[in-house]
Structure formats: structure tokens, C-alpha cells
């Protein structure tokens, strides 16, 4: 390799973290930031104790309770009883190891993937891991971030590195003009529907193109969040001016001379013009409408005005059986329209869509309306700081006046980890990332959408095409 070899942004970031190439073809990769939560870290702490090992780089490690916490207004660690031990164990473990904890009542508490960029813990060009598959979210600020299992959590605690195989490179360029009512969420749902839920396995995905250049950081975080829903552990947007402006001044962002050096460094981390990708995909966004899922995989997705596809048209036998199974579970038939489908629940939250821009987009759809009779609609801000910022601009009043529940920050109804669940057979429009069987509660039926689509559904009491609603501007 010569000095002139064009490199992708991914290669540049990866190379900076190579501690050692191992004989078996894997790489010892340095981990700059390790973020832990209460569900997947205690097994690692137990493992360390059994082996008589210590956390190697406590400075590079932080923790926050957020998965199993109640979201009831005024919640404590005891509000959701089954979660109490998990939260207390995290507190005990982090205190004993000397790891910074953003505790239940800390103003900086939040869903890991929301609070990490907010606080400047996730940084452009830095590696970041967490025992959660949606860690790829923070690729939105240009970090190289990926989800790991509990054994790897323990591995990072003990060594600050991970032996990993280098993924292949995929670039997805979004070009064209966005339709009215189309958001980052619709772009990523479209991409997953287009490529399939396993298409990104083994790849690090760089999102690029003019649409991404114009996309605010919050939208990029949404886009990167769902890379794992097409199988890719890593999704990112190469650091640019928007990312630098976003990070500047955050509590744990570099400052002074360090900031100047960091900024110079981050500007060098874009893909060279001649860099080669293992897969290079071009998406014309013009035909992407507001998206809604009809089945039990994020790849089961259509524009909201399209009809549910007929599994009989699918040649592959497993894929056909899957689609049939999904339709049965969802209580739908081929050819059905999802618009006018009555719903029971609306969930606006999760690491996918719970940031301030998401709440603004949802509030903009309410237009003085009320949540439809018989619908439970909840807003769960992604972090305590998002919650306070939304309150400062009066969004909470808009939601509360319309009949939405205004709750505390945590993962909530995305994975039914606490008592925020969708009832059996009930239909929920959710801004989260997974419409798997039972994900939001046993036999719950999930339709994934953008926050604007979810808010509109709450008011209408049914799934609606927001392009036919008043007051909807084109924005992402």
C-alpha cells in the first residue's frame, strides 16, 4: 500500500485504532469509549470478579441506567419493581470499579445512544461500544460505534480492546429531492425494505450523498440507529462541519488546544474521492413516501398509500412462509390498505426517534387536535435533557393538552423491558426500530413509522398518510 492509496472514511477510522494485527486475521481494536447500562453489564462485572480481573481503563468507561427504568412521571428506581435490583447492581458495580455513573436522578441520564452524543461522550472518529445492538446510532456524529454482547462487555472492561474481524465497506448514497412528509426514519425504513434485513451483515455502512449532507445530526442519528436492522453492526456519516458544530461545547467534548487538534483530525476522516467500496448503492429519494411497516421485520415496509404485498408473489419458499406468518400475526391480508386501520397505542420514543427534533415534528402534527378516543398515546423523551429542553419550549404542554402521556426518559415501550407494554392483539404505531413478534409485549402488533406519522395516527385513531393532512412541511 502506498501513501497515495485512496481510503474510505471507515478505513481511516479503523486504522487509527489498530493495536495489533493477530495471526488469525483478526485485529485487536482499541475502544475509546465504553458505555454501559444495567441489563448487559452485570454479567461482565461478575466475570471479572470470578477471574480476579479489574476494569482496565475506567476513564474511558461510563454507565447509565435506562433499559429497565420506569418512565412514570416522577419515577424512582423502585417505580418498576423488577428493575430495582438491576439499577442498584449497576450503581454498586460502577462505584466499586470507579466508573462514572449518570444515575437515575442525574439531569444527564438518558438512553445511552441519546445521552452519549448529547454529552460529547461519543466523538467523531472515536470507537465506541455498548452492550446494545443500537450502538451504531452514534455513527450519526461520525463515531465508529457498534453493539456487543455481554462477554465482549467484559472483554472491553478487562482489556480496553476487542479482537474483531474487519467488516467490509458499504456506501449508501441518498440523492434527489425529498417529498413532503418524508423524514430520516423513512429513508432508513426504505433502505431496509429495498435491501433486506440481512443485507448489511458483515459490513460497515457509510451513508453519503447530498441528502445526507443536508440532514441535521438528529436525523443522521436516526439513520445510523437502524443500520443493525439490515444486519450492519456499524453505520455512520463521515465527520463534517455539521458534526463538528454539533460536538463543540458539549460537556465532555474536547476544549482549548485539544479541541483545535481534534477538529483538524476530524476533518481528515472523510472518504477519498477514489476510495473503493465493496458495495456502493445509490438511492433516489424522490419516490420515497412516508413509510409504515406491515409485518414483523423492518424489511416488511411500504409507503403508507401502498397495499400490503401478496406473499404468493414471493418465489423463495422460506420468504413466502415468513410473509404469510407475518400477515397472520399482524391480522392483515394481502392487498389491505394500512390507512384507516384502527390503532390502540402510539409510542413516540426510543433511541431511534426521541430527540428534540422528533418531538417537534410530532407536536407539529397535532394542530390543536386531541388523541382519539380509545387510543393510549405516550411521549417518552430520549433523555432527561431532551425532556427539559422540550418543556422549555412548551412542547410538553402541546402534548399534554392533546391527551398524550408525557413521561420520563428510558427505553420504555420499544422493547417492553419495563411495564410500558402493548396489549395482546393491540395495534401500536411506534417510532422505535423493531416490529418483531412480541417485541412490544406478547402478541402486540407494531407498525413502525416516523414521529410525525405516529402523532398523526394518535389524533386520527388510525394510520393516516400525513401528506393528506394540513400543515405538513417537507423537512427531515
Amino acid at each position, binding site marked *: 500500500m502506498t501513501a497515495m492509496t485512496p481510503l474510505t472514511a471507515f478505513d481511516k477510522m479503523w486504522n487509527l485504532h489498530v493495536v495489533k494485527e493477530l495471526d488469525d486475521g483478526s485485529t485487536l481494536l482499541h475502544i475509546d469509549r465504553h458505555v454501559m447500562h444495567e441489563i448487559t453489564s*452485570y454479567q461482565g462485572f461478575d466475570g471479572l470478579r470470578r477471574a480476579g480481573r479489574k476494569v482496565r481503563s475506567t476513564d474511558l468507561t461510563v454507565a447509565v441506567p435506562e433499559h429497565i427504568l420506569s418512565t412514570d412521571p416522577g419515577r424512582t428506581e423502585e417505580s418498576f419493581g423488577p428493575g430495582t435490583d438491576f439499577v442498584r447492581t449497576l450503581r454498586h458495580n460502577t462505584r466499586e470499579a470507579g*466508573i462514572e455513573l449518570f444515575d437515575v436522578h442525574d439531569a444527564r441520564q438518558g438512553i445511552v445512544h441519546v445521552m452519549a452524543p448529547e454529552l460529547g461522550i461519543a466523538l467523531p472518529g472515536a470507537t465506541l461500544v455498548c452492550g446494545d445492538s443500537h450502538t451504531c446510532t452514534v455513527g450519526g456524529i461520525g463515531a465508529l460505534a457498534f453493539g456487543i454482547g455481554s*462477554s*465482549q462487555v467484559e472483554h472491553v472492561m478487562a482489556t480496553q480492546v476487542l479482537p474483531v474481524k474487519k467488516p467490509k465497506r458499504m456506501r449508501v448514497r441518498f440523492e434527489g429531492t425529498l417529498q413532503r412528509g418524508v423524514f430520516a426514519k423513512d429513508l432508513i425504513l426504505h433502505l431496509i425494505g429495498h435491501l433486506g*434485513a440481512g443485507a448489511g451483515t458483515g459490513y460497515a455502512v457509510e451513508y453519503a450523498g447530498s441528502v445526507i449532507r443536508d440532514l441535521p445530526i438528529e436525523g443522521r442519528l436516526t439513520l445510523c440507529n437502524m443500520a443493525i436492522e439490515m444486519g450492519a453492526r456499524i453505520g455512520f456519516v463521515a465527520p463534517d462541519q455539521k458534526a463538528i458544530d454539533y460536538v463543540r461545547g458539549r460537556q465532555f467534548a474536547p476544549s482549548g488546544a485539544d479541541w483545535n487538534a481534534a477538529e483538524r483530525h476530524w476533518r481528515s476522516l472523510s472518504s477519498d474521492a477514489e476510495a473503493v467500496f465493496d458495495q456502493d448503492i445509490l438511492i433516489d429519494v424522490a419516490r420515497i413516501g412516508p413509510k409504515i411497516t406491515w409485518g414483523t421485520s423492518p424489511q416488511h415496509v411500504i409507503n403508507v398509500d401502498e397495499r400490503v404485498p401478496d406473499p404468493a408473489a414471493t418465489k423463495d419458499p*422460506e420468504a413466502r412462509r415468513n410473509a404469510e406468518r407475518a400477515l397472520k400475526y399482524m391480522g392483515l391480508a394481502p392487498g389491505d390498505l394500512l390507512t384507516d386501520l384502527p390503532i390502540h397505542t402510539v409510542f413516540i420514543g426510543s433511541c431511534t426517534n426521541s430527540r428534540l427534533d422528533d418531538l417537534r415534528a410530532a407536536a407539529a402534527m397535532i394542530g390543536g387536535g386531541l388523541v382519539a378516543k380509545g387510543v393510549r398515546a405516550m411521549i417518552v423523551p430520549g433523555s432527561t435533557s431532551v425532556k427539559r429542553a422540550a418543556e422549555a419550549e412548551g412542547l410538553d404542554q402541546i402534548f399534554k393538552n392533546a391527551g398524550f402521556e408525557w413521561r420520563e426518559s428510558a427505553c420504555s415501550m420499544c422493547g417492553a423491558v419495563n411495564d410500558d407494554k402493548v396489549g395482546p392483539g393491540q395495534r401500536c404505531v411506534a417510532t422505535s426500530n423493531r416490529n418483531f413478534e412480541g417485541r412490544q409485549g*406478547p402478541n402486540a402488533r407494531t407498525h413502525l413509522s416516523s414521529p410525525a406519522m405516529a402523532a398523526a395516527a394518535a389524533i386520527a385513531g388510525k394510520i393516516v398518510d400525513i401528506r393528506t393532512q394540513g400543515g405538513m412541511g417537507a423537512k427531515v
Partner: protein
Amino acid sequence: MQKFERLTAVAAPLLIDNIDTDQMIPVHRMLASMHPDYGAGLFANWRYIDDKAPNPEFILNQIPYTKAGILIAGENFACGSSREHAVWALQGFGIRCVIAMSFGDIFFNNCFKQGVLPITLPAATIRTLAAEIAASGGNDPLTVSLVDRRISSARGMVIDFAIDDGLREILLKGLDEIGQTLLHEADISAFQARDRLARPWIYSATPAAMRRAAAVSNAEVKSGE
């Protein structure tokens, strides 16, 4: 970690694509307590009626598959959540090998931490294998040899499979991966020393380092008063 060399066991075909780790261990079973019976929670939403009685229609409730030690699956098996609990649930049930058309990446990696062998085979081979198992009513066991990288059936079917050498070694020897990495401790320290000069902010702009820096500067202010 438990070694994996050879396994002869009943194999249960579950040819559904995109089975996610939420199905493998639903959250209400995974977090029922801090140390629940993960094996009992395996596929709970499919395996039990109202979370209690065994669902006779689910394959792992049907003899001989109740004793399955191998699972045969479709595309993108164990996609979704990073929960290693999905591997613990398989292990708890007694399944130590999954043969699938493709795997979710995090699950695939998690398997090697727990002595579970994931094998990827082409779709057509998996369909043939599943059909042969179904023809025997599941009674003919499969033998999986990691030593020989070979699957063989009681009726004489032989399938060779490929696996990364490093990962194979981990399972064959039951290696402690952290222990292996710690052999490179000097390299890790050298990297961090170099990196502190190249990217100082990675080490200085952290909650703990900034807290210490603030404490030092407060102390200096006080001593200067």
C-alpha cells in the same frame, strides 16, 4: 469455557427466516430476575401457551425434538438485539450447535464466547438436511465434528463446512479469550501511550479526567488565595 469438538444429537429444523433474539428469549423471561432460567425461556412465546403450558405445535415440544442438541435454521438467524441471553437460552435448553443459512452478526460472535458452534451452509443444503431429518421423524441424529469440519447423518449424508481458523481454535480448545488478549498487554499499553500524544482528547475529555482536572485547579485556586 466448554470445549466443542464433536456432537451427536437430535437436530430440530426451524426453517423460518429472520428469527430474532427477542423470539429466542423474550424480554419477560430474560429479565424475570437477575439470574433467571434462560433455558426455560428459550422461544417462550412460541413454546408456551399463555407463557405456561407447552404448545404442542412447536417443534421443541415434540418428541424427539425435546432433546434437540442441534438447531437448523433459515436466513439471518438470531438477528436483532445483542442480548447474549439468546446463546445462554440455547445452551440452557441443551442446544450447542446451530446450522443456518446465515446469522445475525452479534449473535454469531456471541456463540464463540459460550462454546456454541454456529455453522453457515447454503440454503439448498439446509433444505435437503431438514428434509432428511423430517423423513426420519427426527429420530436419526446428526453428528457435527468441528475437528473434521464435517456434518454427517445417520443415513450417510456427509456435508463439509468452512469455519474461520481462529474461531475454530477457540471452540476446540475452550480458550479464555480475555486471557488471550491479556497476552498482548504490552502492545495495548504501548498503543495508549502513542495515542495519548496523537489524540490527547480521547484521554483528557472524559468525565473522570475532567473531574480530576477540575479538582486540581480548584485546589490551586485555594492554595493561591
